[in-house]
C-alpha cells in the first residue's frame, strides 16, 4: 500500500508517456504524430518535476535575505514569524544537524530538475517548429500528410 502511494505519480506519468507513444506509432497522420511526441515530451517534464519534489517543501525561492537592504528587517521578521528563515534543501532529517543555529529550517524542493526542464521545454519547441516546417514542406511536395499515402507514392515513383 505504501508502494502504491509512493509510486503513484510515476505510474500516472508512465500512463501519459505510453499514450503519447501510442499516438506516435499507431497514427499515420504526420501532425498527429507530432502531437503524440509533444505529449510524450510533456510527460518526461512531469517525471523530472515529480522527482524533484520534497515532502513538505516549497518552491525554491529563498525567503531569508542576505542583501544589505532587508538585513535590518531580518531580526524583526524572525521574531514575528517564529524564526522562519534559513535555507535548507534537506528535509527535517538532515535539517536537524544545522538546527543548532536556526530554530526552524525551511524546506525547499530541488531546483535542478526545474532548471533542466526549462531548457528542455525551449529545445522542445524548437524541434516541434522544425518538425512542423517539414510537414508543411511534405504537404507541398506530396499533397498529403498521411504517412502511408506518402510511402505509396514513393513506391510508385
Amino acid at each position, binding site marked *: 500500500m*505504501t508502494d502504491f502511494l509512493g509510486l503513484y505519480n510515476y505510474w500516472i506519468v508512465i500512463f501519459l508517456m*505510453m499514450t503519447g507513444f501510442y499516438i506516435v506509432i499507431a497514427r499515420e497522420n504526420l501532425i498527429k504524430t507530432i502531437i503524440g511526441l*509533444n505529449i510524450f515530451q510533456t510527460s518526461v517534464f512531469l517525471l523530472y518535476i515529480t522527482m524533484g519534489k520534497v515532502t513538505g517543501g516549497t518552491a525554491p525561492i*529563498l525567503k531569508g535575505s*542576505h542583501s544589505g537592504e532587508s538585513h535590518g528587517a531580518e531580526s524583526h521578521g524572525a521574531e514575528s514569524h517564529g524564526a522562519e528563515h534559513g535555507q535548507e534543501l534537506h528535509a527535517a532529517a538532515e535539517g536537524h544537524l544545522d538546527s543548532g543555529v536556526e530554530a526552524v529550517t525551511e524546506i525547499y524542493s530541488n531546483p535542478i530538475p526545474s532548471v533542466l526542464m526549462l531548457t528542455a521545454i525551449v529545445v522542445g519547441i524548437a524541434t*516541434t517548429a522544425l518538425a512542423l*516546417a517539414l510537414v508543411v514542406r511534405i504537404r507541398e511536395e506530396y499533397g498529403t500528410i498521411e504517412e502511408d499515402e506518402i510511402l505509396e507514392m514513393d513506391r510508385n515513383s
Partner: protein
Amino acid sequence: MMDLIVIPILALLAATAVTVARIRNLWAAVMFTGIYSFLSASWMLILDAPDVAFTEAAVGAGITTILMLATLSLTPRRHRKSGRLSSEDFEERPSKSPLVPLLIVTITGCALVYGTFDMPHFGDPNAPIQVYPQPSFVEKSQPDMHGLPNVVTAVLASYRGYDTLGETAVIFTAGIAVLLILRKNTDDQGTSESQSVTGENA
C-alpha cells in the same frame, strides 16, 4: 488540501491524453493538446516548480498551439481552390487495427512500471536526486547572485549559463532550418502557402 486537488488534475490529464489519442479531428486534437499543457502546468505548480509551470503554459500551451494551428491551416486535405474549407479537411483517416501498437505500448508500460519499483518514493528527502549535487548551493546562491531569491533563475542564468547559451544556439539553428525548409524555390513553381509560418517562429 493540496493532495486533494491533485486527484482531479491527474484524472483530467489522463482523460485529455486519451481523448487526444482517440479523436480524429486534428483541430480538436490540437486544442486538447493545449488543454493538456495547461493541466500539466497546474500539476507542476503543485509540485513546487512555478518557473517550469509558467514556461509550460506560455510555450507548451501557447506557442506550440499557434504553430500547430498555422501548420494545419497550410495542410488541408483538399486543395484550397476547391471551395471553402470544412472540418472534414482536417480529419485524419480512420486508422488500421490498433492491436499491435496497443500491445507494444502495454508491454513497454509494464516494463517501465516494473522499473519504478526501485525508484525512491515520491517526496522522499533522502532520494539520490536530493542528496547528490551538494544542496548547500541553495544557500550560497543568494549571496552569489547579489540577493536574487529565486534559485532556479540563479542556476539557469549563472551556474548553468553556458547551457542556456547552448539552448539559445539551438533555437537559432532551428529558426534558420525552418526558414531554409520553407523557403520558396524560385525555379520550381511550388504552392505559395509556405511563407506565413516562418514569421511565427521568429
